[in-house]
């Protein structure tokens, strides 16, 4: 069992919701999906590589026959899977501090959700509804979300410079190279093992 691989933490959470409330949440997710500026805080937090919310209605748990007993549930369930950088505490703290309104909007429909502020009961709730990951794989364990974004910026700038380099004089190249360095200098961070947090 491991929730961590390199610089990424896998969080799983499941919370019960009264079925009539899931329709409200579906509408909220629809708006969040289609009005991109509403995702700005999530994007700007910049330590989430991938995250997803899945509404699982009580009658939609996979049923395959072959001796499987059909589920008989009263609640729908909200599943949350996140892949983030940093520690559990840092993640929940940042969520609570930066995204409290967004989080409340998503989880207030779940049973007994205490609100994301103050953070102590919020952490207790997350710890209660979280379950552990048995196997966790990442293609780039020693890169954080910001490393990925930066690497693509460097790659794109380098490709542009290389195109220009084919047809310019040494002086023109020196100017273009200087611009390139200015452009990528903030994106050359080191990848490697995560620092130890005490």
């Amino acid at each position, binding site marked *: *069992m*491991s929730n961590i*691989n390199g610089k*990424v933490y896998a969080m799983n959470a*499941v*919370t*019960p919701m009264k079925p009539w409330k899931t329709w409200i*949440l579906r509408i909220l997710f629809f708006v969040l999906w289609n009005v991109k500026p509403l995702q700005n805080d999530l994007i700007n937090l910049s330590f*989430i*590589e*991938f995250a*997803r*919310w*899945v*509404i699982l209605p009580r009658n*939609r*748990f*996979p049923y*395959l*026959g*072959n*001796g*499987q*007993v059909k*589920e*008989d549930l009263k*609640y729908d*369930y909200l599943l949350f*899977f996140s892949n983030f950088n940093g520690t559990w505490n840092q993640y929940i703290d940042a969520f609570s501090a930066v995204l409290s309104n967004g989080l409340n909007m998503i989880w207030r429909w779940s*049973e*007994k959700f205490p609100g994301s502020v103050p953070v102590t009961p919020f952490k207790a709730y997350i710890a*209660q509804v979280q*379950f552990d990951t*048995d*196997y*966790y*794989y*990442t*293609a*780039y*364990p*020693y890169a954080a*979300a910001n*490393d*990925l*974004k930066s*690497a*693509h910026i*460097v*790659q794109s700038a380098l490709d542009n410079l290389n195109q220009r*380099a084919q047809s310019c004089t*040494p*002086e023109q*190249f*020196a100017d273009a190279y200087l611009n390139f*360095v200015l452009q990528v200098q903030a994106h*050359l961070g*080191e*990848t*490697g093992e995560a620092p130890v947090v005490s």
Partner: protein
Amino acid sequence: MPNQNGTVYGLTILSPIIDDERATPSHDLKIREYLATLPTGEESPFAIAPGTHLARLVVMDDVIYVGAPSCEEHLRSKYLVFESNCDSDMESYLRGLAASVPQHLDAIWSHCVGYPGAANVQAFLDYMTSCQIETTFFFAAVNNKSVTETLTALQTQRAVADFIACHQGMKSEQLQKEFAEFMRMLKAAPVPRPGGQAPRRDIKTGGRNE
């Protein structure tokens, strides 16, 4: 379509685990036992098969009771949750898995109800489709790059940092020549293997992590 964000696909699969009271150990424990020994680096089945950014396998024993006044209820089956963030679409991705690592798929999913095996690819796809749950909201920090493009970009980033550090103050003519050679070598370099550790470099930050 919430399963897809840009070119990245968010696959969520819940497979009911066989509940057989005569099995010792139980099927969910057998899955956990197998997953505990499965490599997570370059030898991972998800590194061998193409297209996985991040993936997880989780045995979900039950739903969680959050306390009164909510009702307490329990699942009648345990479920294997497969959550993957992958390139392309579901069918191509699953075909890649079935072609590359069928032995691992069979070892894991043979403990699930109705699993037909990966050898019969169409039956395997049908099975996975019947267990798929649609994602309601899918967020990806980078949603327009493949695994290969990302690994290449990370390699480029390291190489560029080294090149800049080693070529400070160089004359224009020499710089252009060495840049051309650098690009030639960078293009000839093999794509790093997924799941591998980034090469360690001697860094001098002057800080406490040096």
